[in-house]
């Protein structure tokens, strides 16, 4: 298995303890390439990038490093095409979700993975079927890349009985026992202790090894400031648990920058308080993310060494669908657009001759169909029946469980 260390020139690295010194920038490989003409899917991609025009080939800050190009060249074409397909799936799904939210098909809060597609796909490529995943409320893409039917995901957003959580969870609370997606969680940091406990259960029942199970626990950058992060990482360290904590650092917790929120803004260093090694990786680079996650999962499953992976990327839109993100500087928005991993990978694949324009266009068209079918499925599905309001009250039924509707009497009294 390729690991960051084994490949010269990779930006990801594993550190046992952080190094003192200045704040390094997130490692970024820039790519620039003349972009192929936009297909509908990529037009949708670009529409996601607010109102400013898309970055052009003249954007001199982008440009693939030799190492990155080599890394891509080393991948089988069909793997890269599949990663691209998955990234486009997340992109298009999220755009349609935003649209459905505006059309009031989706309620509550709706947080999108737009801009984080390379991180999503890279992480899910590293996670094995036997591993368990705990995520945040920003988790549609993870569900899709975990292989869950997009229709069932969209149906959950629609609050339908056919949704992955039967309509009980909504956008923030996707769950699929079969896919070992053990939930999106809406309380910031709330998933970290249960994920740690899942790793404890693995350690309780089985020995470490290449084939052992492991847990991946996702969180945002802002989440590293909550107490549960500290308590959980410490437990994982002293108990030697098979878990990989991933900080999806999109630079913002709602409107607050990492720098404003965190005394140590290079978040991968925060494992040091527990002697947990940290890895920082370019979250816009699907291969780099995958490899860093793979190596971390290897440490977790084979050595019971928990690892903290930080994937640095950008949020293309507001915190949730309704947030216009007025607090963001034009420069920051422009930078996010420029680094957008979906068109970047697209043009790189074409430029490098990995896939041709026709193949890319076919992928995009197929994804559009898949998502359209998901929306149709969600739309046509029935809502949960009101008669089932108490269906999930308890796993073990006991006497006197209250099954009362709001206007019902508590106990009946006869004169």
């Amino acid at each position: 298995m390729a690991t960051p260390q084994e490949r010269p020139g990779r930006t990801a690295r594993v550190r046992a303890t952080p190094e003192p010194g200045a704040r390094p920038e997130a490692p970024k490989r820039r790519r620039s390439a003349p972009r192929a003409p936009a297909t509908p899917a990529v037009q949708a991609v670009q529409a996601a990038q607010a109102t400013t025009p898309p970055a052009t080939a003249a954007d001199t800050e982008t440009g693939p490093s030799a190492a990155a190009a080599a890394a891509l060249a080393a991948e089988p074409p069909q793997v890269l095409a599949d990663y691209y397909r998955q990234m486009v799936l997340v992109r298009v799904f999220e755009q349609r979700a935003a649209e459905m939210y505006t059309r009031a098909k989706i309620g509550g809060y709706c947080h999108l993975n737009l801009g984080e597609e390379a991180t999503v796909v890279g992480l899910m490529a590293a996670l094995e079927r036997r591993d368990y995943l705990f995520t945040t409320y920003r988790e549609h893409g993870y569900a899709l890349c975990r292989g869950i039917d997009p229709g069932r995901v969209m149906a959950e957003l629609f609050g339908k009985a056919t949704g992955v959580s039967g309509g009980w969870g909504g956008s923030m609370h996707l769950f699929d026992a079969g896919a070992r997606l053990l939930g999106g969680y809406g309380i910031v940091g709330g998933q970290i202790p249960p994920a740690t406990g899942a790793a404890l259960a693995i350690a309780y029942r089985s020995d470490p090894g290449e084939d052992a199970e492991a847990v991946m626990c996702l969180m945002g950058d802002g989440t590293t400031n909550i107490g549960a992060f500290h308590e959980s990482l410490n437990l994982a360290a002293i108990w030697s648990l098979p878990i990989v904590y991933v900080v999806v650092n999109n630079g913002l917790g709602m409107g607050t920058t990492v720098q404003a929120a965190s005394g140590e803004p290079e978040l991968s260093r925060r494992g040091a308080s527990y002697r947990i090694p940290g890895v920082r990786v370019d979250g816009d680079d699907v291969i780099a993310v995958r490899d860093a996650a793979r190596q971390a999962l290897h440490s977790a499953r084979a050595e019971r060494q928990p690892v903290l992976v930080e994937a640095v990327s950008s949020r293309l839109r507001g915190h949730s669908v309704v947030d216009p993100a007025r607090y963001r500087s034009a420069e920051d928005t422009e930078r996010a657009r420029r680094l957008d991993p979906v068109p970047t990978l697209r043009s790189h694949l074409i430029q490098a001759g990995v896939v041709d324009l026709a193949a890319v266009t076919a992928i995009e068209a197929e994804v559009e169909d898949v998502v359209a079918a998901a929306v149709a499925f969600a739309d046509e599905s029935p809502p949960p029946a009101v008669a089932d309001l108490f269906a999930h009250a308890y796993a073990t039924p006991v006497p006197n469980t209250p099954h009362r509707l709001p206007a019902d009497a508590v106990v009946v009294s006869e004169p």
Partner: protein
Amino acid sequence: MTEISYRQALHDTLRAEMLRDESVFLLGEEIGIFEGSYKITAGLLQEFGPRRVRDTPISEEGFVGAAVGAAMLGLRPVVELMTINFSLLAIDQIVNHAAKIHAMFGGQASVPMVIRTPGGGGQQLGATHSQNIEVYYAHIPGLKVVAPSTPADAKGLLTASIRDDDPVLVVENLALYNTKGDVPDGDHVTEIGTAAVTKEGTDLTVVAYSRAAAIALDVARRLEDEHISVEVVDLRSLRPLDRETICASVRKTTRAVVIEDDWLSYGIGAEIAATIQEGAFYHLDAPVRRVAAAEVPLPYAKSLEQAALPHAGDLVTVIHETLDATGFTP
């Protein structure tokens, strides 16, 4: 009097108190640059600067506790907790610290802080973001808990809370932020610990607070068409609880219904019903009934969510059933 929204009343009150008293400052997640999750603090960062409008990391236990310490040194922090659901992350600082410090240290310190936080379901936010757990705070000696239902009370109670030397929890409600009402101009203080009879009536008393008090008032007005005279008691203050006002009303009307947004068992309404049966026992003609949420984690799906939450129609039904039980005919 000016007609403004509940949101505006809260905003204006924060601003007025900050102008009045240099020791008042705001603290919370996303209250500055983001202008507040529900925009209550919009514009205040620009006006007062980051010293007095302080954005915090996602560290509820940390920043609520920091407010406790700042208050012990005489500042008057007004904390925004994004929703009451997240208060569970900070509850040790609220219950084991803010509420205890004055008494546990023999009266040597006080904790003049305010926590503003909205509760409320019905927005399809799912099980962890839709709770009404004000009973957690109402149960605790050392805390004061208010829950305004109108823009005027939002102003009056928030003003009183900021000027009070004890820790006060101000329970707001997502569904009320856009509601409008007349608000007294100038200084307006509503005494903590007092309920209000928001509509007089003779046949039955409805007791409620926050969003449910607005529903109760609406239902009471509508039932006048049916010649049913409902009196509405809006608790306003959950701790201390104004038991006399509640019982006096029921002694007069002889019937009572409670409506509340929280779960029935061990909810706020339990204390109200228990209080009424004790304080108006010899006047009561029918059991005190409670209209409250169904006892399930609130589902996301609209169909289920709406079925679980109390509505005006539920209150009307229970009022009718209560009147019927006593043979009342309008």
